[in-house]
């Protein structure tokens, strides 16, 4: 009886640990609600790759934008992510899906989400 109790304790401890380190990605794909568990590390790797790519490719482009004499000034740019979830994770589903995140670049001290 005591052994069963110990096994149950180990089982629930492992289960609790696993729960704390994972969470679902949720969304819709081809009209269907979906959810798929990912580990915290995998999600971090995905976001890290995405943010690095967007950061390194967007900033030089914006910085090279010449101030024109048109009277208009570009202040905030939001870049949404729209490529496959294959970075670090492999395809989650068969279709192309992406985390719904936005990176807002600004040359203003008061940036806003467009």
């Amino acid at each position: 009886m005591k052994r069963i109790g110990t096994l149950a304790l180990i089982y629930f401890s492992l289960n609790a640990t696993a729960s704390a380190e994972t969470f679902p990605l949720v969304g819709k794909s081809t009209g269907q609600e979906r959810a798929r568990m990912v580990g915290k590390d995998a999600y971090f790797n995905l976001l890290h790759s995405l943010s690095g790519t967007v950061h390194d490719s967007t900033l030089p482009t914006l910085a090279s934008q010449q101030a024109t004499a048109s009277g208009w000034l570009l202040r905030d740019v939001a870049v949404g992510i729209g490529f496959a979830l294959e970075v670090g994770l492999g395809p989650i589903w068969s279709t192309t899906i992406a985390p719904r995140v936005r990176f807002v670049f600004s040359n203003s001290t008061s940036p806003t989400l467009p």
Partner: protein
Amino acid sequence: MNHKIAFLSFCTLALCTACGNDSDPRSSDETALLSAPGPVPESWYRLPEDGPARNPGSLDTLGRSFEQILDSQAEALNALPPSPAPFLEAGGKHPPDWVPWRLALFSADLGITSNGLLGPLVFDGGRAVQAVWERKDTVPSAEKAEPIGFRAGKGKSDLMISQPLSKEQLARRLEPSIRAALATKKIRNESLFRKNVLSSAEKFNNMAWQLSTMKKTGMRFEPSGFRLEFVFGAEGEVSPGIAVGGEVSLRFDWARRESSGSVPPPSPGAALDPAAQKLAAFARGVAPDIDAAIAGDPFLKYGFKFDGVRIALGAIGEFEFGIAKASTQVIGSIEFSRSDAGGAPLSAAPATEPGEDVLLIDTSPAPEHLRYAGRTGALVAGSGNSGTVVYKLKHEKIQRGLKKALSMGSFFASHATAPRKGRWWLSELSAEYSLSLTGEAGLATLGGLAEIELTFAHLEGK
């Protein structure tokens, strides 16, 4: 640098309580996840008229799961290289608030499925780049002051004002949007279109002025933003509402700014404009409810500041404003922010006489909602030929709904307080809530998914 973190809970009260879910909520992917960690209590996203909530959820595991998501996002941002100082724009004059380009904000959405699973929201398909341009030299100096309260609603605005403008100023500001609309070839009668755009803007101007006069009325929450959409048909005819296709829609925004002294009316008849008076009456009726609901300031202990509430507007007749029941029925919004700029903790709200009931406007009521209203005795105040149903809500019901929305917000705030080292911090946490006929509130769902938006800001960005 202001290190105070703002909690932003815009209660778009009544954004879609029962939008049809076009999918089987228990798809094969999700069936395997029924025992996944952290189901959200069903009562948080299911309203009484949509059926009884059964799953009580698990707040402990939900909180842990939420923290894991926040940690992952903050760590990913902190791993980015520091802002590249050498990147400078070449040439040209810059406004005073100009700084070199940098990554300033990061925004991510969390979704809640029909089964209560909370996680980062993903979507299929691409997303366009959005850019905000600003005129360099034509913005009046008075408008360069910081806006009061939280930011205006998202999306492009065709007219943004912070103080009443003359007819000539309005016409000048609107000209780019008018030309853009005409270029779509959807408008056949240009002269009537121009006339109606201008008259709509003048009406909006009057409404904004009425709201701006409510600054010194002793309310702790005052209107700080207002948005209204106008739809124009092919012949230039106008109505407030949502474009359903084929029409041209223009969006007008007002944001309160600090100004010295009283603001003069835009025209001699502005104070008598019925639409402006009705909007002011609606605002005066709802502001005390927000005050009563937030008393005690539950967010301060978590390091967050409650900034305000955004309420989705619907209308019947000639600008009889009420709360819109569903997102497809929203014609605009009104925002309320703290009049003291969020200084001291809010104590109990002063007692006020309850005003007239607040209208909850549903232009396409679901049959089950009508049946529920009939069973529970929720008063249906009107039902026109168009099928529009208007419920009247007592102020105590509005307050109860707000309190429930705030308690859900405080749960997430309580799990967002863990110190996270680095240059990126969660600066805003916002969610939209639906309001039930009974006064209950739940996280608003669209197509079965409720959403919570997280925004991280760069601490060294300013």
